[in-house]
C-alpha cells in the first residue's frame, strides 16, 4: 500500500492499445482489481489492463482522481458523478460500464448503469433502437407477437410508429 511517508506512490497503468497512464495509487485503488494487484505486490512495474482501451481508461482515471479528491461526503460524490457522466455520449457510457465491471469499481458501475437506465426509460421502442443503433431483427410477425405478449408494458407510453 501507499508509503506512509514521503511522496505519494504513483502507479503506471497500460491500456490494451498500449497507452501508459500514471495515477496516484490512492486514487487507482478505487478499482478493486488494481487494489488486489497492489496488495499482492504485483503493481511494481506497469499494470496491464487488457480489457480497457486508452480513451476509456483516460476517462476512468479522470473519474478516479476526481472522486478520490472529494472527502467522505456522499452528497458531493454523487453530484460529482452526475456531472462527470452528464456529457458522456452513449458509446463512452457503454465502454465505461464494461471497464468499471472489469476494474471492479462498484460506485462507477452503479452510476453508469443507472445513467443508461435513465436514458432508456420512458422512451418508445423506436427511439431506443435509433439512439442506440439497435437493429430490429424480428420479422413483423415476430415483433407483433412479442408486443402482444408484453402489451402491459406499453400502457402509458407514447405510441411508437418506429419512424
Amino acid at each position, binding site marked *: 500500500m501507499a508509503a506512509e511517508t514521503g511522496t505519494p506512490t504513483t502507479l503506471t497503468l497500460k491500456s490494451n492499445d498500449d497507452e501508459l497512464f500514471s495515477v496516484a495509487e490512492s486514487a487507482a485503488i478505487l478499482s478493486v482489481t488494481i487494489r488486489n494487484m497492489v496488495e499482492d505486490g504485483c503493481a511494481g512495474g506497469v499494470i496491464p489492463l487488457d480489457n480497457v482501451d486508452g480513451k476509456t481508461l483516460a476517462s476512468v482515471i479522470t473519474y478516479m482522481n476526481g472522486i478520490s479528491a472529494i472527502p467522505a461526503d456522499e452528497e458531493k460524490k454523487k453530484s460529482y458523478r452526475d456531472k462527470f457522466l452528464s456529457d458522456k455520449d*452513449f458509446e463512452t457510457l*457503454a465502454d465505461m460500464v464494461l471497464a468499471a465491471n472489469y476494474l471492479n469499481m462498484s460506485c462507477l458501475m452503479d452510476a453508469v448503469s443507472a445513467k443508461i437506465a435513465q436514458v432508456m426509460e420512458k422512451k418508445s421502442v423506436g427511439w431506443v433502437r435509433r439512439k442506440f*443503433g439497435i437493429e*430490429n431483427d424480428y420479422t413483423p410477425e415476430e415483433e407483433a407477437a412479442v408486443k402482444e405478449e408484453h402489451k402491459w408494458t406499453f400502457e402509458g407510453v407514447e405510441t411508437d410508429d418506429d419512424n
Partner: protein
Amino acid sequence: MDANRVGTHSNSKPEMCDKAGYLGGKDDDRLSKLPDDILVDIMSRMSLKEAARTSVLSSRWKHLWKYIPFLKFDADNVYKIMDHHSADELIEIEAPKYVEWVNSVIQSHKSPTLKQFKIHFHLDRRHTDAITRWIEFAFSRQAERLELNHESFVNPKRYYCFPRFHSFATSNSLKALSLKSVHVRDAAVEFILRNCPRLEELFVRYSHNFSNLEVCGSSLKLKRLDL
C-alpha cells in the same frame, strides 16, 4: 484532474474524447454487445414495466428482462384513476387484471433468485389463492425482501390472511418482510421468526390480531421490528 498520460500516443485531454451531447449511435450496437449480466443490472434499475418493454427491441433482448432479480408489481396507472372509483369498484374492475399480470410475469420469470418481490395493490381475501401462490413463488426463488401492501382502505374484515406456513416459509435468504393491510396471526410471525434466521426487518402495519406474540428464535438477527 485530467488523467496523466505517460505515453505519447495522444496529448488530448480525456474530456475532449467525449463529444458532448448525443448518444453515439452509429452502426455498431454497443448496448446489445454488453454482457447479459450488465444489461440485466441496467434493467434492474428500471421499473418492471420499463424493463420488460426492452423485449421488443430485438431478439437479443427478448428474454433478458426475465432475469432481473427485482419483481416490483407497482400498479401506478391504477392509482391515477382511483379518484373516480370507490375502493370496492376498483378492486372489482382492476384486481383481476392485476392478478393476471403478476401470474403471467412469474410464470415466465427466469431469475433463480430474487432480491425483492413486491405486491402493491388493493387485494383482499377473495384473492387468497393467488397471493399465497405468489408468496410460495417468492420463497422458492429465495427472495431477500418480500413486501405485501394491500392498501389501508381495504375493509379490514376482508384482509388477506397471511398463511401459517408449514414447509416453504423456511428461508435462509429472507432479510426483510413487510406486510400492510394483511391479517397476520401470532403463530405466523412466530413461525417466520423461527424459520428465517437471516431476517433483519419485520414490518407489519394495519393488522389487528396480535395478542400474545412471542418474539424468539435460535439465532435472531432481527434489527427492526415494527408491528
